[in-house]
C-alpha cells in the first residue's frame, strides 16, 4: 500500500525523538551502570605494557626480565596519584601486602640517582609468582567480584565461589531486609486496601466518591510532602503520640520514628492507593447480582466471599500487590527520612556506594541486582494485567 508508506515514515519520525532520547538518557545509563558492575580497569589503565607482556606468561615460571621491565616502565609513567591509589587498593584487596610492596617499589623507582635494574632487586617478593598472578588476574577488564559481592559471595584462593565471611556479608542482610520490609508493606496494604476497595465498590453516590477521593488525593500529593508529614507526625512530641496520650491509651510516648514501625506505617500510607485502585477497577467489573445470587443459593456471607468474590477479584489483588512490592523495593526517600540505621534499604546502600565512597563497581552491582528483580517482577505484573479473561 503506497498510501501507508508515507504515514509509516511520518509515524517513525514522530517516534524517533523520544526513542533516541530514551536510548541516550535511559538505556545508556542503565547499561553504563551494568557495565560498571563488571568493569575493573583500575589496574589495566595504568599498566598497559605489563598487560601485553603478561599475556604471554604461563603463570607458573618465575617472572622474566621483560615482565619486570615492562612493569617498571609502567610504574614510572604513572602521574595520577589517585589512580595509583585506586590500583594499589584493588591489588591489595586481591592479595594483601601490595600496599607496602608498591610503596617500596614506587619510591625506589623514583630514585633517579640509583635506578634499579629489575624489580627483584628492590624486593624479593617480586621474584615469586604470587604477586604477579594477582596483577595478571587484575588486568582483566571484566570481573565478577562486584556481582558476587553484591550477593555476599566471593572467590577463594582456588577460584571457587563461596560465601564471604560474616563480617563482610552485609549485602545479603540488606537485600533480605529490603524484601522483608517490602513484603510487610505489601501485606498491610492488602489487609487494609482489599476490604476498603470492596466497600467502595459496593457503595454508590457520594459515599463511593468520597472513598475514591480519599485514595486519589494522596496520590496527587507529592511523595516528599507525604513523607514529611509522617516525619512530623511520628515524632516523640508529634501529633500521634500527643493524641494517644490525650486518649490515655499510653503513658509514655511511643518510639515511632527512626525505626521499622515508622517506616512501615509511612510506606503503607504512601503505597496504599497503588493497592486500592487496581483491586477497585477489577471489582467494578463484577456483576452486582452475583453476591445476592450466592446468598439466595444458601451461601452465608463468608462462604459467598470465599467462593465468589475472592476468586473473581484475585487478579486485582495480585496486580496491586506486585505494584506495591515493586515500588517498595526501590524506595529511597521514605526509609532514608523515617528509618533508623537498621532500616536502610538497598537503594540507600547504592546511593552510599555511588556518592559516598565512589565505589562504582559495588553501586553498579547492587543496582543490577535491584534492576533485575524489578524487571522480573514487572514482567509478571505486565502478564497479569494483559491477561484479561475473554469476555463475549
Amino acid at each position, binding site marked *: 500500500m503506497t498510501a501507508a508508506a508515507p504515514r509509516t515514515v511520518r509515524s517513525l519520525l514522530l517516534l524517533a525523538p523520544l526513542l533516541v532520547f530514551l536510548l541516550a538518557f535511559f538505556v545508556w545509563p542503565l547499561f553504563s551502570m551494568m557495565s560498571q558492575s563488571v568493569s575493573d580497569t583500575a589496574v589495566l589503565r595504568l599498566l598497559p605494557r605489563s598487560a601485553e607482556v603478561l599475556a604471554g606468561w604461563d603463570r607458573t615460571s618465575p617472572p622474566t626480565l621483560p615482565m619486570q621491565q615492562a612493569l617498571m616502565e609502567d610504574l614510572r609513567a604513572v602521574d595520577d596519584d589517585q589512580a595509583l591509589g585506586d590500583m594499589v587498593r584493588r591489588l591489595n584487596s586481591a592479595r594483601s601486602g601490595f600496599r607496602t610492596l608498591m610503596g617500596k617499589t614506587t619510591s625506589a623507582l623514583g630514585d633517579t640517582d640509583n635506578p634499579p635494574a629489575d624489580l627483584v632487586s628492590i624486593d624479593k617478593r617480586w621474584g615469586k609468582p604470587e604477586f604477579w598472578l594477582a596483577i595478571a588476574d587484575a588486568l582483566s577488564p571484566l570481573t565478577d567480584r562486584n556481582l558476587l559481592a553484591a550477593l555476599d559471595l566471593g572467590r577463594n584462593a582456588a577460584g571457587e565461589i563461596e560465601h564471604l565471611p560474616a563480617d563482610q556479608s552485609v549485602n545479603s542482610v540488606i537485600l533480605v531486609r529490603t524484601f522483608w520490609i517490602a513484603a510487610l508493606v505489601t501485606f498491610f496494604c492488602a489487609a487494609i486496601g482489599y476490604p476498603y476497595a470492596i466497600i467502595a465498590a459496593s457503595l454508590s453516590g457520594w459515599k463511593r466518591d468520597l472513598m475514591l477521593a480519599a485514595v486519589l488525593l494522596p496520590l496527587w500529593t507529592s511523595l516528599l510532602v507525604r513523607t514529611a508529614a509522617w516525619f512530623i507526625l511520628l515524632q516523640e512530641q508529634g501529633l500521634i503520640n500527643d493524641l494517644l496520650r490525650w486518649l490515655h491509651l499510653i503513658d509514655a510516648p511511643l518510639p515511632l520514628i527512626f525505626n521499622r514501625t515508622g517506616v512501615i506505617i509511612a510506606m503503607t500510607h504512601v503505597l496504599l492507593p497503588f493497592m486500592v485502585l487496581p483491586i477497585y477497577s477489577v471489582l467494578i467489573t463484577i*456483576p452486582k*447480582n*452475583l453476591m*445476592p*445470587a*450466592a*446468598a*439466595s*443459593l*444458601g*451461601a*452465608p*456471607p463468608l*462462604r*459467598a466471599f470465599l*467462593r*465468589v468474590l475472592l*476468586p*473473581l477479584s484475585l487478579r486485582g489483588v495480585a496486580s496491586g500487590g506486585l505494584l506495591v512490592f515493586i515500588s517498595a523495593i526501590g524506595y529511597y526517600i521514605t526509609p532514608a527520612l523515617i528509618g533508623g540505621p537498621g532500616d536502610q534499604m538497598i537503594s540507600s546502600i547504592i546511593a552510599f556506594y555511588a556518592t559516598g565512597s565512589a565505589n562504582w563497581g559495588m553501586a553498579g552491582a547492587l543496582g543490577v541486582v535491584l534492576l533485575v528483580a524489578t524487571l522480573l517482577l514487572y514482567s509478571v505484573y505486565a502478564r497479569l494485567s494483559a491477561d484479561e*479473561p*475473554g*469476555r*463475549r
Partner: protein
Amino acid sequence: MDPRVKPEDDESEVCVRRRASFRQPAEVMEYPLAEFIRFDRITKFYGSLCVVENLDLGIGKGEFVSLLGPSGSGKTTLLMMLAGFEQPTSGAILLDGAAINAVPTHKRDMGVVFQSYALFPHMTVGENVAFPLQMRGLGKAEIAGRVKRALDMVQLSALSERRPSQLSGGQQQRVALARALVFEPRVVLMDEPLGALDKQLREQMQLDIRDLHRRLGLTIVFVTHDQSEALTMSDRVAVFNKGRIEQIGTPRQVYDEPATRFVAEFIGETNLVEGVVEAVEGAEATVRLSSGARIVSAVSAPVASGQPVYLSIRPERVDLSETRGEARNVLETEVADFVYQGDHLRVQLQNDAHPLIAKLGRRSREFPPGTKVYAAFSAGDCRVIAP
C-alpha cells in the same frame, strides 16, 4: 362466607374486608390452595419515596403468581423483599405461617432466577448448578447425581463443562433455572428472567417454565412487565401500579373483568368510554353516554346512580354491522380507518361522542372508510369501572 377464608385464618373483620376487596363477584373460584406466602401490610420507603404501599398479598402452595406492572410499580421490590435482599420498612412477610423478616437470605431456601442470570463466570455450568448443593453440605456423589438430573431437565447436560461466557442467552437462562431448582426450594422467584431473549425463544421458555411448574408443583412468584407473558403462564396475576396492587385474579378475570381503569388499559387493549350511571340492577348497570346513548353493562364493583364512570369494552368484543340488529348495546358510528393486520382486521370508528376501536376476525367483510355502521356488544362484553 368466602370458601377461601378458613375460619382460623380470619383474624378480624378488617382482614375480611380487605380480602373481600380482592374477591371476584360473579364466579366462585375453585381455590382450595393452602396459603403459603403472605405479605401483610408491607410498606417500603426508599428515603422519602414510597415504592410499596401497605400491600397485602396471599400466595397459595403450588400456585404460579405473576406480579405484573410497569417499571417502578414496586413488583420487583416486593420480590426482593421476599428473597431477603431488601427489608420492608414496615409489615411482615410470612412463609408457611412464620414471619421471615429476620431470616437472612441464605437461610430462606428460595430459588431466585435473576434478570441477568447472575451465573458465576469463574465456574463451569456444572459447578454453578452444584453450588447450592455444596452450600447444603451434600456428598459429592449425590451432588453429581442431582446436577445431572437438573441439567437434563433443562436439556443442557452436554454443556456442563462450559463456562457461562461460552453460552447463548437462552442457554444461560436455562442454567440459571436449573441452578435455582436443583436444591428443590420451597419457593421459586423469577425477576423478569425472559426479558433478554428474542421473541421465539421467550415464548418457548414460557411454555417450558409452565410445564416445569405443573410437573414439579412448585410455588412460583414471577415478576414481569409483559402482560401477555403474565396471562400465558400464571394461575393468578397481581397487577401493580405505583406500589399498590390494583387487581388480583386469574388471567381471565383481569382481562375480562378489569377492576380499574389502569388494569383495563394495561392488560390488552380496550375502549374506554365516559358516562354517568343512571340505574343499577343487581349485577348490571345502565350508563348514559355523553351522546345520549344508553349502554347496559356488567359491573365489577358497586356503583351508585349518578356516579361518573368509565365503560371498558374490549375491541374484539365489538361486532360491526350495517343494520341495527338485536344486541342490547348498539352505538351508531362511522368507519374512520380500516387496517389489515394479518391475523385480524383493525377498524377505527368515530362518532360525535367518542372514538372506538374494533378488532374483527379475518373472515369478516371489509368496511371501507366512511361507511356508517352499528357497533354492537352484549352487556357481559362491557364493564363499568370507577374512575
